[in-house]
């Protein structure tokens, strides 16, 4: 838990506050995204938690590992910072240190022995799905996305209950960012950290946050609520403008594909004969169907017009699929993927590339309408 109580910050030599009278609480195990236009004090707010910036007025409490609420202003800043995970925008990996040494930064400061540091680093790399040989590499030998994952791993090195993240996925391309966001959300399901997450991107804020704090210029908290409530009930005009006119589209960020997908789609087996497949598809009037192997791994698709009058086995006619969506993807990302490859339906696959379901345009449309009516009822 992180608790702000009437926190104000006025920078030296300025009269107007950067953050004004901020009061809100981030419950244990939740991600709170802070978002707002530039100059809204979101980074200042975050940095006051680990006292990189000292508040002018007010109190900040953090739940420590022993389960006690402690006023950060009464803890030695060096010790405080070592107890809070810190992940920043440009990653800030130390270029002259190996990945192992980078991940081991805080453990080493806390006096862990080498064996323990290495074991923890290996554990973290496994958690991040990265090969262990990376440990002896230097940051510049890794790609941007890999470095960003190491940055996250470094922040989690000592398993701190509270983490601060300042645009942690800002330095990678949109596709990688999406991947990292999904990975992190999945990880958060297990680790359940209390996270203060700063971003300037409202879509990221909606996607990552259990709660969103929207700040206005001068560090005024305009609304603090769940993403769904902010989208359906913006508190004022500022929020409405900031969230944007496409609110119903943004709501797609909140729905995962597994919530709406068809979990028992009609799939063709590679071992089936073309005749069998054609019959199956014409029975339910399908013009095209996805093909899987014996392990339900996606092989591609077949079209009924390609199979017309042909004999033999399905796997001779399979065309590779240009897109498949992973479990955990938001409907918004799924939709944009589908539009990009111009498909009306795509397979939903798990980490082992096995097909777990199918999603199409109509399912997405239905989900949007349902969520709109649900939000309306909630409001009324």
């Amino acid at each position, binding site marked *: 838990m992180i608790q702000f109580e009437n926190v104000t910050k006025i920078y030296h030599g300025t009269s107007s506050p950067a953050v004004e009278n901020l009061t809100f609480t981030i419950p244990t195990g939740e991600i709170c995204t802070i978002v707002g236009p530039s100059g809204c004090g979101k980074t200042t707010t975050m940095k006051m938690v680990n006292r*990189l910036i000292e508040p002018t007025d007010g109190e900040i409490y953090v739940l420590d590992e022993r389960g006690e609420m402690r006023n950060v202003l009464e803890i030695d800043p060096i010790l405080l910072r070592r107890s809070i995970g810190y992940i920043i925008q440009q990653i800030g*990996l130390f270029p002259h240190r190996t990945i192992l040494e980078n991940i081991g930064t805080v453990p080493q400061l806390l006096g862990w022995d080498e064996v323990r540091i290495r074991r923890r680093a290996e554990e973290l790399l496994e958690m991040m799905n990265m090969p262990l040989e990376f440990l002896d*590499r230097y940051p510049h030998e890794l790609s941007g996305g890999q470095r960003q994952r190491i940055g996250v791993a470094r922040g989690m090195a000592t398993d701190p209950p509270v983490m601060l993240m300042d645009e942690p996925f800002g330095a990678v391309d949109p596709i990688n960012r999406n991947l990292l966001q999904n990975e992190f959300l999945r990880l958060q399901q297990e680790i359940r950290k209390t996270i203060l997450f700063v971003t300037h991107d409202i879509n990221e804020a909606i996607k990552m946050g259990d709660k969103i704090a929207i700040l206005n210029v001068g560090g005024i908290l305009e609304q603090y609520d769940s993403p769904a409530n902010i989208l359906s009930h913006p508190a004022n005009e500022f929020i409405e403008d900031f969230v944007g006119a496409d609110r119903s589209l943004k709501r797609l960020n909140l729905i995962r594909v597994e919530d709406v997908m068809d979990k028992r789609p009609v799939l063709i087996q590679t071992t089936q004969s073309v005749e069998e497949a054609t019959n199956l598809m014409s029975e339910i009037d399908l013009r095209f169907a996805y093909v899987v192997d014996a392990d339900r791994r996606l092989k591609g698709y077949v079209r009924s017009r390609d199979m017309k009058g042909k004999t033999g086995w399905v796997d001779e006619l399979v065309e590779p699929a240009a897109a498949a969506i992973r479990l955990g993807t938001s409907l918004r990302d799924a939709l944009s993927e589908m539009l990009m490859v111009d498909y009306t339906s795509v397979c939903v696959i798990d980490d082992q590339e096995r097909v777990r379901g199918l999603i199409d345009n109509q399912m997405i449309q239905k989900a949007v309408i349902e969520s709109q009516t649900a939000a309306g009822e909630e409001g009324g």
Partner: protein
Amino acid sequence: MADKNTLNRLGSVETDEKFSLQPTEKKNYWRRLGRLSFHDVLGWTVIPVLMIIVVILVYTQLLLPIEPGSMEANMLGSYEIGFKRVMDAAAEHIRLIIVSTLLAIAVGVPAGILITRQGFRDFSGLILGVANIGQSVPSIAILAIFMGILGLGFKTAIFALWLYALLPIVRNTAIGIEEVDPNIIEAATGMGMTNRQILLQIELPLAFPVMFAGIRTAAVINVGTAALGAFIGAGGLGTFIIAGIPLMRDRLILVGAILTAVIAILVDWILGKVQDRLVVPTATG
């Protein structure tokens, strides 16, 4: 077309391999030796071989006996400029450089660090300005000024050389530290490193290449400046030059000048090699 593709693919495989092998490469000396390219071999041999040839030429063509009782002999206080005499002068010269450069490092590095610390930053302009003025005064003038204060001899020469070497070291230390990516410093602070830990574990290692370049520059400048030490009786290879000029004996001047140049080139080369060795690859891309 097919050939070109193959070539491209081969090219990329090679770079990939080089990339992934980097850590092991360091440990495996023999493998490294096997990978030495023509370019590496040139880099290690050209300069030393050239310098040896030059020294041999000096030895065979210029080191001739001097007539007893001649003006040269009186000027040099000896009857010959034999091999031993030249070597002694060269050793003296090198001693001047090493002592003055080490002293300059001992003072310059802490000074450079100091002016990047909070509270002293405001003075960095002032300190660098003073050092700059010191640098722009001709070296011969510095020698003359301090000869009046400190007298003739080795100590005065060391002092002047030290003053001269100070600026590049202070400046490069400060620049090296200031150029460290602020994001890296912020990450270090945010993870709970103390200022001292940040300085020793982050700033200095990352500033090292720039600092070392300053030390290298200072040492090379000092080789030339040290030749002027002879004017105030500090010895060194300058002795031959200042003996040769009034007598118009080109031979003497050449011995001093060529050997000074040889030392300058060797100092630069050796420090360059040391730099290659010490600097960890930290491409930030």
